């Protein structure tokens, strides 16, 4: 019978490792690319060679150097100064630092009390204001989390394979392949890493308890992460990727069924967010806040990439709502759930993101 099948897909978590504690910021991830600081930040760092190779290279140098004679050192050809043409030279993890700092440059945040709220600002303009949900609403939301536990059986494989960035899920919908979409993957990863950073800023300030610390019957099926519940970083990342990829698919102009794929991409963002509620680690209102934050971040990244976007700022004051993308995307319905649009913000263009966007856009499969 159907309900007994379907969990065969639990393999495949092996790919999440791969950091090996290498260059730069790589060690910060700790969990090998699980969340936040991904495998991205160590990519393309060769690290050190083995002791035998290092010793062998020394001996080889001594043995071969005489063949090049003892003339003068030739003149150095200079690289272009502070020029985008150099971005492609750097390791991916180096560009990772550049993307993060380009985004942080101009980012600011402020907290308010009575009511408690945090506002993310970009270039001085408000992006997103999230009010701290009341403990009464959190208590009410626990019923939703318990209701969603009914879906754990069938969502188990998805939930376990979405502990880290669920890039594979986006890739399959858009037909991405590592050989053909290297920079597109880099753009997705940069978006996820930045979204995770920004989510952590807000989570720290708002300090909202996880559902399992309120109602013991929730018993999450995965470890509760070591940060606050509100907003959901998974929702933030998924909606940021959705926003960026929606624009890239349009720029590519390569998929004849792009309208349907974008519907599925939106459905995926919603599903990734909801899966965290099914797992028992997030309230539905965390998804609301994450979707609002992620959409703002996605638009900010598009601005950094040089795409003129003017996006309404949003303020979210949680009510006891279940989360549906249908409600989130309808401004009037969203307002009735406490998500209100305000004055628009935009993000200044920056060189590293502009370069990355051009590279990803060139990966169009249009013929």
């Amino acid at each position, binding site marked *: *019978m*159907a309900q007994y099948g379907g969990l065969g897909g639990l393999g495949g978590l092996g790919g999440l490792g791969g950091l090996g504690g290498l260059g730069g910021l790589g060690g910060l991830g700790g969990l090998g690319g699980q969340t936040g600081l991904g495998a991205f930040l160590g990519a393309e760092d060769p690290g050190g060679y083995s002791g035998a190779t290092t010793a062998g290279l020394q001996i080889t140098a001594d043995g071969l150097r005489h063949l090049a004679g003892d003339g003068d050192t030739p003149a150095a050809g200079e690289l272009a100064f502070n020029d985008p043409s150099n971005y492609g030279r750097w390791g991916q993890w180096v560009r990772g630092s550049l993307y993060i700092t380009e985004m942080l440059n101009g980012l600011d945040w402020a907290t308010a009390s009575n009511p408690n709220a945090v506002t993310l600002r970009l270039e001085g303009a408000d992006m997103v204001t999230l009010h701290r949900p009341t403990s009464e609403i959190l208590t009410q939301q626990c*019923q939703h989390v318990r*209701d969603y536990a*009914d879906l754990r059986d069938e969502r188990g494989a998805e939930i376990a394979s979405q502990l880290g960035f669920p890039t594979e899920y986006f890739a399959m919908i858009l037909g991405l392949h590592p050989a053909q979409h290297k920079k597109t993957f880099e753009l997705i990863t940069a978006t996820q890493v930045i979204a995770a950073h920004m989510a952590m800023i807000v989570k720290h300030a708002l300090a909202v308890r996880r559902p399992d610390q309120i109602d013991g019957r929730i018993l999450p099926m995965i470890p509760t992460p070591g940060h606050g519940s509100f907003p959901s970083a998974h929702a933030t990342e998924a909606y940021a990727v959705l926003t960026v990829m929606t624009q890239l698919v349009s720029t590519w102009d390569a998929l004849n069924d792009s309208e349907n794929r974008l519907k599925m991409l939106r459905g995926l963002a919603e599903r990734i967010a909801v899966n965290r509620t099914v797992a028992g680690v997030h309230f539905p209102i965390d998804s609301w806040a994450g979707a609002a934050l992620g959409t703002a971040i996605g638009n900010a990244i598009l601005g950094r990439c040089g795409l003129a976007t003017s996006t309404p700022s949003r303020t979210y004051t949680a009510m*006891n709502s279940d989360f549906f993308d249908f409600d989130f995307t309808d401004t009037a319905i969203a307002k009735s759930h406490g998500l209100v649009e305000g004055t628009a913000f935009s993000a200044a263009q920056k060189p590293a993101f502009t370069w990355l966007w051009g590279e990803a856009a060139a990966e169009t499969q249009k013929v």
Partner: protein
Amino acid sequence: MYAPRPPHQQVDRYAGPYERWVFSPELGRPYAFPAISNAGATYFTALLEGSDALPDDPDTHYRLPPLWNPLNKSRAVTPFAFHSHAASEAQTDRDVAGILANVRNGDDDVRPRFRVNFPVSPDSWTKTYHPHCDMDKWVVPGTRPKAIVAVIDDGIPFAHRAFLDAEGRTRMSHVWLQSAKAPSHGAVPFGRELMNGEINALRHNAGDDENLLYRRAGAIDPTIPELGQHLKRQATHGAHIAGTCAGNDSRLASHPIGDEVQIIAVQLPNTIAWDTSGFGKEMYMLSALHYVFDRARAIAAKYADDPDNPTELPLVVNFSYGWSASRHDGKSEMELAIEALLADRKTLQPATAIVMPTGNNFDQNMHGQITKHDLQAGQFDFGWQLLPDDRTSSYLEIWLPEGYDPTGLSITAHPPKGHDNIAPATVKINEAQAAADDHGDPRCFHEIEAGGENIGQLSADKHRGNRWRIMLALIPTVNTRGQSRRAPSGCWTISIAQNDAPPLTQDERIKVWVQRDDDPASLQTGGKQSRLIDFSAAPAPGRRSPLNPYTSTLGFIRGYGAMNGVASSGSVTRVAGHMAQTMTPCTYSGAGGLRLDSDGLALPCGAHASLSAVADQSAFLAGTRSIGVRSGAGARLQGTSGASPAAARLMVINAAKALPLMAGFQGPLAMPDSAMPTTDLVRAKHAARTGSFTAPSVGRATRPQPANNTALLS
């Protein structure tokens, strides 16, 4: 908002609340089976009750399927198909009501009721239909038939080698593929009929390529959604069932079937399990039974001195299908029709049986019973838990006792907490009783709305004019099918208020069933099974203890009465499932109802299991083995669906030997040693789950034992 309909456009006047829900665009139609929701239909199927005469209407073309009626009795329920010439495609409840009004023929004295079913695909409508089977494609089997076994199911691999006789010719005498493309001439009203001569030729011409064979036979056709590519699957429900009751295979070698057993198979629309309401299938099911009886008679006629008056052959029909919510008293349209067929044929041939499973909902919290004690305070509340991400409609049926006068009773549905924008809906029996006598059953409807859009329908109707049913239908809990509405998931509260209605007697109970809403055949419906919640404080002690299967109490929610909703006809053989290794009932196996009398003694009520057969090998080897779709393939199936055909197999083997159908069956399954204490109630519970007989285990042949040890040593 549900727009008011003028009387002649009210489908509930001719049919029931399911039809109103499924065909009304404001209600459940967008979520119905794609053949209904995506486009209009011109060819419909239906049951007619209260008359078996179809009118002479120039605008509508009627077809009766082959009907078995050698005793020339008037039928209470008649399956028929119809096609409206006048109307363009019937899209909505209004159109369907218009057609039914014509069928009713303007005769005010005849007030037939209808159950409107799935439409027929235009490609499946036989252009020239001659109901008489002339057996032209039939060849005389090498061995004279002594009994017939029939299987009604989906995805039946009729050309599988498991169904060959010793000479390599098929034992599949007749096959009706109800949703295949129709040939230009046919003896079935829709779909395609194949006889053994054609199957032999198909097998011969396709060589070993069964994929080619089924495509040539029109049994695989992606252009017809109701048929589709199911026979390309490695395993189907129908393959397992047909193999278990009629096939010869190493997995079933313990009880081989001889060449003197011929097979009749009816393949229902493969998507028949799609709909979650029980709506839409009865005409196909009842036509299938009539077809089986009719063709069995045609086979007998080939061997009769007087072909018009043959001696009917022993016949065992396996029908592993059902749904969960219905009257459960044998008085639904389908059950009345099944009983009439069985009773009539038994007068001609006592060795006649229809074998059905008890269902798999025992431990799903899908049934509840409310007693007079529950209503002592004048009101009883229970919960109905809807799952998130349910992409199909959900249905709850509440049945009042037949003969009980519920004047004054009211039922209220409250949305889950936190949904203040949804007003609770209340239905009062008085309103339905006061409804104008417009030749429909007494009934009334209340719409449940969220933000001005319909999300639910609460109704009361006096089903078939003799028993009150309160039904709650709700739309999916996610936005789907392009709709801007959804029902809240979570716990809905249902309140039954007695008001000034008379109290229930000791023997009377209000019974609650949740309709099936999962996706057992992987049809991608997105259905999620809802369940009942008992608000009474203390859960029954030790309820799910693996060591003590029977508790000493009988609460509101109970598996007892969670019985296949179409299997309550008195003469049907109902098969429960047990685990072969432990000889204990499977945790899911449906059971008969129980009630307590005024002395606290447990009494059976409603239809009970007739016998138990193996449904699981062990806790770790779930299900039973049978054939897959392709010759040589194997599959496992878990559930009472697999137990029923094992019993049918043994019964037809007995019939062919002129033995009593249950020869070789043992007595009731023994009470487990761990069932303590063995009170009267515990004994009644055990009996309700196991029936009176136990079928021997069907499986691989047991290895012959060496005559003695010396044989091994030598």
